[in-house]
């Protein structure tokens, strides 16, 4: 993505209802959570999602209407990134 580009919103059909919690039908299987991670700049809702054969971490940004579900390999990869990796992500998509 080009620097400063705007993130693509999740299509409306894939998004939970505004204010819906983790029981929304988009998330399949059992889940733990939700855990709210918030500061004055953003807030996200994090849950563990059990699929039929494994599990993922669901990260949902209700205000933005975006979500991502990360598996263990992706999360493991996050665990050894430098802070600058995330800075570079925000450089590409500041998220206005």
């Amino acid at each position, binding site marked *: 993505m*080009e*620097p*400063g*580009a*705007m993130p693509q919103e999740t299509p409306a059909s894939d998004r939970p209802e505004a204010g819906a919690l983790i029981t929304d039908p988009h998330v399949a299987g059992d889940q733990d959570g939700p855990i709210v991670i918030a*500061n*004055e*700049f*953003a807030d996200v809702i994090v849950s563990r999602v059990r699929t039929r054969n494994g599990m993922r971490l669901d990260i949902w940004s209700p205000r933005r209407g975006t979500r991502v579900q990360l598996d263990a390999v992706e999360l493991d990869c996050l665990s050894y990134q430098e*802070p600058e990796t*995330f*800075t*570079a992500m*925000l*450089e590409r*998509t*500041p*998220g*206005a």
Partner: protein
Amino acid sequence: MSAADNSQGITPMLAEIREGIAQGRVPARIFNDQEIFDLERRKLFGKAWCFLAHESEIPRPGDYVTRSIADNSIIVARDEHGNICAHLNMCRHRGNMMCKSEMGNASHFRCSYHGWVYKNSGELVGVPYFKEGYDTRLDRKQWGLVEVRTESYAGLVFGTLDPQAPSLDEYLGGFQFYLDIYLKQGLGGSEVHGPPDHWVAETDWKICAENFSGDGYHTPVAHQFGFHLGYFPSSGATHSEGWAVHIPGKGHSIGLGHTPGMPPFFGYPDDLVEQMHESLSPQQLEVFSKTRTAVGSVFPNLSFLIQPFSLVPGEPGVRFCTMRLWHPLGPGRMEMWSWCLVPKGASDEYKEEAYKAYTLAFGQAGTFEQDDFENWTKVTRAAGGSLAQGLEFPYVMGLDRPPLEDWPGPGHAVSPYVTDTNFRNLWGTWADYLARED
């Protein structure tokens, strides 16, 4: 004619005010005056080292608090690599306030106006529509948050708006010896116990700064119920005893009240006293073991007080420590910031007891706090009156008293505790700043 009844503006009168201070006279009007405030904002708070935060308020990467130097909001943050930094709390794009919360944790700050994103270390990284809108015209490296110079002493983070200011070490000028009674209470040093209380008061910041530069004189009168009810282990008969010390030309001062017969380090738990024998020097131990009350200020507006206070009247006192910032908002108007400091290495039980003693005496509704602000607000109001414009106050107590020759610590020390010696140095330093050329 006195130094203060001139209608030609305050600046030409500063030389006369300085001369008066040396002779023991201070104009009443300085405690509530728009011209004085304007000079202070530019020449004092624009040049001095000003307290920002205690390191224990931002212990982890991403932790931040917002504070002020004069009328500038400052973000004090610990970046992702653990370094403490301070920046003007203003987006460089159109000037919006970046952090509106008083405290929080964030790796990046994102402006709520147009969405510019900065690392918590201040660099501009994210600009919406960067390619579509700016082509190649915006160099992000040039538009980071404005950095404020910081230095620390024993957990205290100070900032200065003056790039040419001397080091903090030089600025403190030996006052570190006395600050250690508040900051090295045991081997782990001190930490804040919870967030600060803060509130607006119709009081001039300087009245508070003077009081906490060692005004033992007011205590048996303003706080007489503290004595009479048995909360405060001192007696009007002996309350003048102790010492007053200041760092000449620097404005830092401390009053050290002494109660005859009081056991050394009264009110501290024994294990903490043992630790202090390692964290403090023999000279500091000699001074601090005899001290009942230590009330001191780092020029211009950061103060501390440590003393025993009884949670139940008549019972032995518990040592508490308060740190307070007298933040100027306007002439005769300030925001009071008050923290409780506790020894990091003390038991949770002692920390809680000390916090209760602090709250009882110097929380927003504390008995001593209420006594003081009632008086200080009245002083402020009177100082703004038209007749008061030409009046001066006497600061002649201890004017001819020589310094102690065998005092074990740095600075100019005198005895007894009740004296105006510290205050003449405070106002002399204050006037020196205001009189300096830009």
